[in-house]
């Protein structure tokens, strides 16, 4: 009955579209309904600190070098002898990301030798002025107690807690090695100052085998 199928084929489409009308829609009413983001979401960057408050960035410019969009600008400077900003010789004196150019590929996070730059879960970054899209150290660097900064106050669109969520890269490269390692903290929160806890689960697995 292929001729029947050929004739009816286009008309079956009408039934399909009619049926779809009563299905649940796949899109959500953002921002009222926010869906859970994937484990390795690439959101806005944050610059982290060590638990003692020292900045992790050492001003090596590897992130700027690896950036395919050329959106990161870093200038390093020697640490002051009496009041060092970061452990080591140098620190990030200027750190700017042009969010209009950034493609959120996360290569800067991968390149960073000290895990100073990581990505959070915040993606609501619209600005009304192009200059506001230039994120400087003032917005990127977390406070000493781990609270993140942003170029706009918290609102219905901006949930600053999302800036505290851990970076996917950090999860993926954590010693556990698996993103679904829930409940076992083997990475440090991006904006947090908590030390990397010892990954006991892996040892446990080794012991079991």
């Amino acid at each position, binding site marked *: 009955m292929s001729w029947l199928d050929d004739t009816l084929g286009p008309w079956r489409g*009408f039934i399909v579209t*009619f049926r*779809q009308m009563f299905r649940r*829609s796949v899109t959500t*009413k953002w921002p009222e309904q926010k869906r859970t983001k994937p484990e390795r979401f690439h959101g806005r960057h944050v610059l982290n600190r060590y638990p003692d408050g020292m900045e992790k960035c050492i001003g090596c410019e590897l992130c700027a070098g690896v950036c395919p969009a050329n959106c990161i600008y870093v200038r390093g400077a020697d640490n002051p002898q009496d009041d060092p900003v970061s452990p080591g010789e140098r620190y990030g004196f200027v750190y700017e990301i042009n969010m209009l150019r950034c493609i959120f590929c996360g290569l800067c996070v991968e390149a960073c030798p000290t895990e100073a730059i990581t990505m959070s879960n915040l993606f609501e970054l619209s600005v009304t002025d192009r200059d506001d899209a230039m994120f400087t150290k003032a917005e990127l660097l977390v406070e000493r107690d781990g609270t993140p900064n942003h170029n706009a106050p918290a609102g219905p669109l901006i949930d600053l807690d999302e800036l505290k969520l851990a970076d996917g890269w950090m999860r993926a490269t954590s010693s556990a090695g698996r993103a679904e390692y829930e409940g076992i903290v083997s990475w440090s929160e991006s904006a947090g100052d908590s030390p990397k806890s010892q990954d006991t689960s892996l040892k446990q697995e080794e012991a079991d085998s």
Partner: protein
Amino acid sequence: MDGFWLAAIKVVIAFALLFTVVLFLVWAERRLVARMQNRIGPNRAGPAGMMQTLADGMKLMFKESIDPRRAELAVYLAAPVVALIPALLIFLIIPIGAPITIGSTTYDLQVTDLNIGVLYFLAMSSIAVYAIALAGWSSGSKYPLLGSVRASAQMISYEAALGLALVPVILYNRTTSLAEIVVAQGETYFGIFPAWNIVLIPSFIVFLIAGFAETNRAPFDLVEAEQEIVGGYHTEYSGFRFALFFLAEYINLFNIAALTVVFFLGGWQGPVFGPTFLQYVLPIFWFLLKTVAILFLFIWARASLPRMRYDQLMEFGWKRLIPLSLLWIMVVVVAVGLRRFGLPWS
């Protein structure tokens, strides 16, 4: 003087009604197509996004209107207006409800009842082709030109089918006035089933398909095939000039749906009961209900059918629709003749 004021009030009401309907039509189309594609659709402006069209219109008004350097400016500026005027004029002859009698005067619920209404509609829809042809040519750009060439060929081809589909209606109802055509459809079968013009169902189908092509809608929207020729004839139009084209397009859509109802689905005919007030309102309600049903069909088809190829479109128009219409006209002529004059040998 009375006649003048009455006409003026009717025109104002008709235009207000038309623009309101179009406002909601665009919104309804976007919402419905979104639902059929498992999306939500515009839901921000006003309750359920109903004011979205208004917001878009306001936005377009404040946008820059660009004059392309190579445009023939006079024609280029006239084209959107030429597109809108026939669309508005067609609506004037559509009866949206039963005549209302207040005191000793009877008011028709249409701006004017032309005794050549059918011809007037065909003439106006022919003029609409000019707007598209002129817009495409005067833009001085290749995509609009291609779009307008397609549009002219398509609309002229399908206008033949559109006109031929109306011949049986004229023969059967023996009038070309839209008001009288509706009145002629008031009969019922066995007292309950509305007769309308259901016996003319081949004409109805041809008219509907030609209507899809006349309004440049899917599956015949290759005039505005975004993947091939950007926006077709209105590619170079921006700001409010584009809004005029958009408006004309949706007014035409509503007109075709309303005329389908008038010609084939009994216009405002429907069960009428209750107090006097209800007797005036119900016909309008039935008319709008039927029109909305046809409009839903248009929107449904847009979400369901893929676009036709140009040669398929031409073949379908000239080799299928027009011969079918001609054949059907002959059948109707014989049937109407037999009914009126009896068998030739008796």
